[in-house]
């Protein structure tokens, strides 16, 4: 398979390259022509450091007819690359959030449908084996009906390494845009694709430090679903920059017959590191990105519909956009009822 990584704007691009470059079944291409020419962490410089083929022109990379394309550009620039990749016949894995507007997300979904290619949203956390076990316990009724969920997805402020995360135009917002969707997607799995009904959010930018950007760096989002379940989410970029690990994601499910806590990035080893004078933190758990890429490569190979698909990406985006409306109004925001735009809710293979 020929797989193209389109843009190094998102830090995950490098992760994906490192996971795919040594595989025998993947011929990897990279392209980052919009990169600032002098940025050592972008473009040809990064490709050379990673030891992967690099094409410095969008037309040229699409002319090579990749089988699959991974879109890791800035959030608001996903659409143009997804549309071009689809037109070139490539199945698409698009970084989350799928887009920054519903119009863009819908256009991307439609473009891939028209081209007959899959559109997958990069939500790695649902691929954790521990989460799959939690999902089974909810789905088979052994936990009893789900009452509510609370969770946190905290991380380093990504503007330190990628300033565009603090650009409202390119990123679509700050921590609420960046982090709400991961837990929203886990809810999407647990509730079988049920679109959220109402969202309330509060945020601030106390944690800066880049106050020029003006995006929120701390946020609390409360999401309610039609069946009555709610999710209380802390999406803040509140992991201190000198903390030994980037952050994490934890979710507690309260159900009528039990309470279960899921940690997507459990600490494997602790201790103290005298050379850095800070606590030691060696991560454990599955390699979620690798599991997600397996799913994507399988859909490229077989042409089957990916999970999570573009519709899942759109459902998560709607939660985020409602959160921003709530931030403006100070009140909960009802989402429009959209019963017919969830064709992916039941997977054909199931």
């Amino acid at each position, binding site marked *: 398979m020929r797989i193209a990584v389109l843009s190094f704007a998102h830090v995950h691009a490098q992760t994906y390259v490192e996971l795919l470059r040594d595989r025998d079944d993947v011929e990897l291409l990279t392209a980052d022509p919009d990169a600032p020419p002098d940025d050592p962490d972008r473009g040809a410089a990064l490709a050379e450091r990673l030891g992967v083929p690099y094409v410095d022109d969008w037309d040229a990379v699409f002319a090579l007819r990749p089988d699959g394309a991974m879109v890791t550009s800035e959030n608001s620039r996903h659409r143009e690359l997804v549309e071009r990749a689809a037109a070139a016949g490539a199945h698409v894995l698009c970084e989350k959030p799928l887009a920054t507007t519903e119009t863009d997300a819908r256009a991307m979904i439609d473009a891939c449908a028209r081209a007959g290619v899959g559109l997958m949203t990069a939500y790695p956390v649902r691929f954790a084996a521990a989460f799959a076990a939690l999902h089974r316990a909810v789905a088979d009724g052994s936990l009893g009906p789900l009452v509510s969920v609370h969770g946190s997805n905290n991380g380093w402020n990504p503007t330190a390494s990628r300033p565009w995360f603090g650009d409202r135009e390119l990123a679509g917002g700050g921590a609420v845009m960046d982090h709400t969707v991961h837990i929203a997607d886990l809810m999407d799995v647990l509730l079988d694709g049920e679109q959220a009904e109402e969202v309330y959010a509060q945020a601030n*930018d106390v944690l800066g430090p880049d106050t020029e950007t003006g995006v929120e760096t701390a946020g609390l989002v409360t999401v309610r679903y039609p069946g009555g379940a709610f999710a209380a989410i802390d999406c*803040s970029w509140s992991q201190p920059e000198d903390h030994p690990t980037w952050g994490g994601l934890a979710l507690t499910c309260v159900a009528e017959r039990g309470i279960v806590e899921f940690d997507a990035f459990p600490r494997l080893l602790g201790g103290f590191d005298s050379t850095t004078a800070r606590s030691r933190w060696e991560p454990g758990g599955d390699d979620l990105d690798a599991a997600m890429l397996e799913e994507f490569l399988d859909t490229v190979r077989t042409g089957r519909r990916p999970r999570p698909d573009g519709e899942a990406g759109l459902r998560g985006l709607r939660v985020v956009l409602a959160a921003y409306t709530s931030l403006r109004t100070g009140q909960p925001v009802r989402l429009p009822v959209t019963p017919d735009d969830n064709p992916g809710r039941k997977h054909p293979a199931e």
Partner: protein
Amino acid sequence: MTHLDVALIGAGGIARAHLPAWTALGARVRVYAPDGRAPALAAEFGQTAVASREEAMDGATVVDVCTPTDTHHEITLAAVAAGAHVLCEKPLALRAADAEDMAAAAAAAGLRLYPGHVVRFFPAYAMLHALVTGGALGRVAVARFTRTGRYPTWSPWFAEPARSGGILVDQMIHDMDIARWLFGEVVRVHAHQRGHLTAPAPEDAVATGTAVLTHTTGVITQIVGVWAPPATPFRTTFHIAGTGGTVRHDSLASPGLRIVGTADANAAAGIPVGDFGESPYATQIRELADAFAGGPEPRVGPADGVAAVRIAAAAADSARTGRAVELVTPPAPEGVPA
């Protein structure tokens, strides 16, 4: 005060937590409860059960109100009329107006009224307060608190919203008070609650609530409360992030003593586990008793009790109406994006 003469009204769970603390201070306690449980409780701690509230309050210097929340207002006013200082279990009342009335009555009579916000006396929360007010966290941005304990089915009134206010008011008021203590007044509240929210509650009932508080300082706080399935251990957690770093706590994470192996399920019964040191209830009552005796103001006052009720009642309103409730006109706190 050379002699502590206490009227303990109620003989339920909180009375049982308070009575050993009063006894340890050398107080003479008369226990009254209309449910007939006073004699057994009083006898256990060598105190006296009496047959009427009037008899309990007669000559008391302090009345300790440990009854269902909907009775706090009336009993507190009676205590004040009898000339006694009052320790009133939280919430002071179900409605802010009632709590204000209680505080005003005590103040007018020159008596002290303290709400039993005992979480302020738990070591982890007292330490957290010292850290936050001492600036160790820098400027605080965001906080979250959870509180999980089995559904209080042992006393049927907890499940009756008209008597307890339900989980948002009865249970989550603890962390609402802590959040306000740490981060200042609250200007906006939004809340949901779900699960078994009416009486009677079966043994295996479950209820949850969540509230988001926005403080005048710009800090945002998430509070989650769980009335859990019966075999759930009591647990509280918090996580606070500021410009100076983070602080987190899990009450189950680092016990002083825990049992890690047994011959059978009952073999460990009778071995005390968990946290040692002074009971937070004892710390609370010692500090309040000093204040009743004319000592310094304790770490919690009547205005705190009133404010906590105001926040909790707003959360209940929000859950009922589906709207965020504004508590005062927000002064556009610094640091909140437009």
